[in-house]
């Protein structure tokens, strides 16, 4: 499965599109009727109160979780997902972590570039266990840069990052977007992205999720007799 190099993806077709998507968590339908299209260079910011379903939506878009209804279509060589946890192995050093992910994605040439993008070069031989939360987060984001995949799905990317790191991340994201990539972020703070479109999520009022089959009452006669 070759990675669609970003510049190759033609400007017109969408990198990721969702039609009539509805997602559920623990049998309860959180969002329904979510539709959007992501073109190269687009950034979509998901906003909404805690627990409205931002993470669940991102996980459904990432394919970690099947949608209850609607479809998600992703371009070839698709997406990279950055969840709350940074996928960092504490026992390994910073470069070992990135070398591993580079090898998995078949792009080992970019490790120094990724390190530089998130200003981690001076930490390259430190064991990840000794990094601060902010540095670990930057290492997680460096992995995203490394994947070379057009669509980034980021869940609260800037949590535990200080001012400087947020700016660092914003520039890395900006570079990704200008190179024809796209991103969907669930975040509360403004990243200063000029053309970011916002998607405000509201709880769905549709009946319960996959447990629908159990939604309706039963009129049974038997147990009434002797239970």
């Amino acid at each position: 499965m070759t990675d669609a190099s970003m510049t190759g993806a033609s400007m017109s077709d969408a990198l990721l599109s969702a039609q009539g998507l509805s997602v559920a968590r623990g049998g309860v339908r959180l969002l329904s009727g979510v539709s959007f299209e992501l073109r190269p260079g687009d950034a979509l910011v998901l906003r909404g109160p805690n627990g409205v379903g931002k993470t669940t939506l991102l996980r459904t878009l990432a394919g970690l979780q099947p949608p209850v209804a609607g479809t998600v279509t992703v371009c070839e060589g698709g997406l990279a997902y950055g969840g709350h946890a940074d996928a960092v192995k504490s026992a390994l050093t910073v470069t070992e972590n990135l070398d591993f992910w580079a090898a998995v994605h078949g792009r080992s040439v970019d490790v120094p570039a990724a390190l530089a993008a998130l200003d981690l070069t001076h930490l390259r031989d430190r064991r990840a266990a000794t990094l601060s939360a902010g540095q670990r987060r930057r290492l997680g984001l460096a992995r995203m840069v490394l994947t070379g995949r057009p669509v980034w799905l980021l869940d609260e990317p800037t949590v535990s990052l200080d001012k400087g790191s947020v700016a660092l991340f914003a520039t890395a994201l900006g570079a990704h977007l200008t190179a024809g990539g796209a991103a969907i972020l669930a975040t509360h703070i403004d990243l200063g992205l000029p053309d970011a479109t916002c998607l405000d999520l509201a709880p769905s009022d549709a009946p319960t999720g996959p447990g629908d089959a159990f939604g309706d009452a039963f009129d049974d006669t038997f147990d009434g007799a002797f239970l």
Partner: protein
Amino acid sequence: MSLWEYANPKKFMETTGWLLPWLTALTALTLGGGLVWGFFLTPDADRFGSTVKILYVHVPSAFIAINAWVMMLVTSLIWLVRRHHVSVLAARAAAPVGMVMTLIALFTGAVWGQPMWGTWWAWDPRLTAFLILFLFYLGYLALWAAIENPDTAADLTSVLCLVGSVFAFLSRYAVYFWAQGLHQGASLSVDRAQHVADVYAYPLWLTMAGFVFLFLTLVFVRTRTEIRARRLSALVARERKAA
């Protein structure tokens, strides 16, 4: 109306609603009749003496113990392929019944063998196979209990049931191979019913039917309970969401 129609909870509840009274009556008739006939009206066998009466509980319970797992395998497959809630809940409902039947088969088998072997437990390959089957049931139910999300639990237990069935089948032959070394008394095996004289065979078929109907009744009642429990948790979840 295809068979799959029965897999939606509302239809299943309605159908079992009117079916269960008849099934309960049929169970009482066949099981009661079979046991009474087997216990009171059969003469003593020449060699075994009155222990042949244990046949009437050991053989049917062993039969149900094995076929309950086969039923769970089929319903797990139906769940994995067609995603019907009722079939996986029927599997969950059948597991405790199968487990108890395995325990009964083990207990009666060991008790029956006691006069022959002189000990309460000899590693007879058939009984050992049921001991392993009991462990499979235990693992299956433990996995159900360990996972909160019902859909995840349904999927994981179904996968365990599939893989477990292959290993249960393999274990059966491994145990027979392993027990070669033992010098066994007369074989007290499940398939003994074939060469049993007619006077014993008729009550045996009746008790077998009784156990089968008992199994069906219990599985239907327990499946209905599982469906109600799922509806309860769905309503509670919806209420929490609405609040």
